[in-house]
């Protein structure tokens, strides 16, 4: 096989058994790799109804056929498992250098099973794989863990993916951090790792990924890099300002969620914009493996030293969503989350929900005791509770359950801005209907990177769609975006390439690497297959479309109070049936037999 190594590494932490298996070419052709193939494996190997924290759950580190190649942004990998936050499929994407290193060690996938009886880490040096004691690392933060492991491992070129204290404490939105600052952030994949007593995976590899046609591949790569460099977003906006370049445009469009999504306009947005970050704290930009874009931010603040980020989502979560305008506090909050191993979106949004509950008198100061009041705009509060969440101390223990379980425990789930119990990111759907449908139907719950409709609806790329339109055409676009994203995630590339590249470009890269002969449509079809197998996993886990494919009541009933979207609610009931139809599902949201047969998935459901 080309592009793929053709090998899966399986480590059972209960029995200590370590073995390798062949990756089947047929599976690769059907599910590509990464997100898609890992979901297929998970669906076949676990009962989707199990408790995500039970030893029966599996944690899969999955690369794609382009991971570790010179394809632009070919450095991504996914972590796939059953999520303790949503109870559905989790698949978290990360960049940096860990994924390519795993592949260089000779494995497309690492499947972790069972549960160790004491803290351990997995050490991989090419064929030499060991489970080692990690008792001395338990409780340690991410950078200290990483540094210690690199020292122990004795090779500074090794790469580390680990959890922080939050993962150990089973915070439902704990992340897995690799290369210190890159996060497989969402859906609590770090908590699953913690539940297995697995602190880290350290890997070093010396093998090369072979592609089908070297010369062809090189010329295709060159051509795509040129496209990326010439594109004003991937060649200009992103390297110059990072993802935070979005702050102003989203705010000016009136969908920058403020104070737990109570409004979509934040008067101080400029102070936390990419422009402000570049002027105040930026040291330089930074790229993941094989990335010609380099959207990463290396920043410096005296309180934390040299750090990375914050990204747009994190700026918003700790900024406008918590009513905070001070960029320095946001930089610190982001750094804390990286160190503690917390997902920034869910952390910020959960604190924001608590702030609204507090200001509405539902959470009372008596319950918080001496801890700072949960008021919007209070930066001390922010840093205090981030630490408490990671350690599950005091009120942090309740926050560690995520905004939905928190709000529900007070009888007010409507104040949790989440879908399928996962916190929503930085776009108010009252200003972008297609993005709203994407939120409502995303297989991993509240998420923007499962079909980034902000691109056509707000940024005008690759087409300009009216954000308030709810036509069948809009529904079709959502499906295309979701399917294309599924291919990109499964291939091992970064989603940001899609500002410059289209389905044809991805097909060129994948074909040249794997030697497969897929048309752009066939690759998209593979993306559709990935989307549907995730849906099947969720249905088997207990998803009820009528109840779960929806949005917080706020978006459906409370008109946006001000700004360009004033008066708008999300017309979900109009667009959702059109979306189901575009997917070839029945009107209730279940994949039809016909559709599953067409995708070759009928045996799963």
């Amino acid at each position, binding site marked *: 096989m080309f592009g793929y190594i053709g090998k899966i590494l399986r480590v059972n932490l209960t029995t200590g058994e370590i073995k390798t298996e062949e990756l089947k070419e047929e599976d690769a052709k059907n599910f590509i790799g990464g997100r898609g193939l890992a979901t297929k494996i998970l669906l076949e190997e676990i009962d989707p109804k199990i408790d995500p924290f039970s030893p029966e759950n599996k944690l899969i580190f999955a690369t794609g056929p382009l991971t570790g190649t010179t394809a632009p942004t070919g450095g991504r990998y996914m972590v796939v498992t059953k999520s303790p936050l949503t109870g559905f499929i989790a698949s978290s994407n990360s960049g940096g250098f860990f994924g390519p290193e795993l592949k260089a060690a000779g494995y497309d996938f690492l499947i972790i099973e069972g549960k160790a009886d004491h803290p351990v880490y997995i050490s991989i040096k090419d064929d030499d794989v060991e489970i080692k004691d990690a008792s001395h690392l338990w409780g340690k933060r991410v950078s200290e863990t990483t540094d210690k492991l690199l020292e122990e491992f004795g090779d500074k070129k090794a790469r580390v993916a680990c959890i922080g204290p939050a993962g150990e404490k089973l915070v439902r939105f704990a992340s897995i951090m690799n290369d210190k600052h890159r996060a497989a952030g969402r859906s609590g994949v770090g908590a699953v790792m913690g539940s297995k007593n697995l602190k880290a995976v350290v890997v070093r590899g010396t093998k090369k990924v072979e592609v089908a046609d070297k010369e062809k591949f090189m010329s295709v790569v060159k051509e795509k890099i040129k496209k990326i460099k010439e*594109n*004003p*977003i*991937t060649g*200009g*906006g*992103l390297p*110059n*300002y*990072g*993802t*935070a*370049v*979005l702050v*102003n*445009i989203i705010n*000016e*469009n*009136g969908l920058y969620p403020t104070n737990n999504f109570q409004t979509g306009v934040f008067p101080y947005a*400029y102070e936390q*914009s*990419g*422009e402000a970050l570049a002027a105040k704290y930026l040291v330089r930009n930074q790229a993941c493996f094989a990335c010609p874009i380099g*959207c990463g931010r290396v920043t410096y603040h005296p309180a934390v030293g040299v750090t990375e980020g914050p*990204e*747009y*989502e994190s700026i918003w979560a700790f900024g406008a969503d918590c009513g905070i305008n001070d960029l320095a506090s946001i930089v610190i909050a982001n750094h804390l989350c990286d160190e503690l191993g917390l997902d920034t979106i869910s952390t910020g949004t959960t604190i924001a929900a608590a702030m609204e509950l507090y200001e509405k008198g539902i959470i009372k100061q008596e319950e918080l005791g001496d801890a700072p009041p949960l008021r919007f705009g209070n930066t001390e509060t922010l840093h205090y509770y981030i630490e408490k969440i990671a350690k599950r101390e005091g009120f942090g223990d309740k926050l560690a359950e995520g905004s939905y379980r928190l709000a529900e425990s007070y009888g007010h789930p409507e104040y949790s801005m989440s879908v399928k119990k996962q916190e929503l990111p930085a776009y108010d759907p009252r200003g972008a209907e297609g993005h709203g449908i994407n939120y409502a139907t995303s297989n991993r719950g509240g998420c*923007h*990177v499962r079909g*980034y409709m*902000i*691109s056509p609806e*707000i*940024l*005008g*790329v690759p087409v*300009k769609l*009216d*954000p*308030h339109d709810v036509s069948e055409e809009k529904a079709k676009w959502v499906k295309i975006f979701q399917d294309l994203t599924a291919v990109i995630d499964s291939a091992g590339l970064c*989603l*940001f390439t899609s*500002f410059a590249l289209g389905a044809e470009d991805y097909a060129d890269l994948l074909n040249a690497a794997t030697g497969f002969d897929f048309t752009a449509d066939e690759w998209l079809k593979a993306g559709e297959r990935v989307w549907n197998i995730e849906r099947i996993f969720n249905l088997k886990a207990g998803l009820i479309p009528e109840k779960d494919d929806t949005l917080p009541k706020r978006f459906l009933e409370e008109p946006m109070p001000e*700004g*360009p*979207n004033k008066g708008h609610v999300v017309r979900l009931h109009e667009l959702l049936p059109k979306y189901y139809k575009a997917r070839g599902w029945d009107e209730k949201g279940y994949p039809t037999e016909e559709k599953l047969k067409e995708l070759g998935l009928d045996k799963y459901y």
Partner: protein
Amino acid sequence: MVKVKVFATLRNIVGKNELEVQADTVGELLEKLYSEYPEMKKELEKGAVILVNGKNIEHLEKLDTKLKDGDVVSIFPPVGGG
């Protein structure tokens, strides 16, 4: 007068964040800006997002979108992220 807000690279070209311009349509406004800041035209050649009071002109009357006193026009070079 119309209030014009510029962002990202446009700020370096214009040298400030905001300016006031007299114009009756978006097209006329851009002509005026381009003649004063020729580099801006180059920067926006590959695409731009232009909002009038937060609404994208693509979904209004495009360059013919009418402007009146006190309107706010926001101009962005192509941006993306996530």
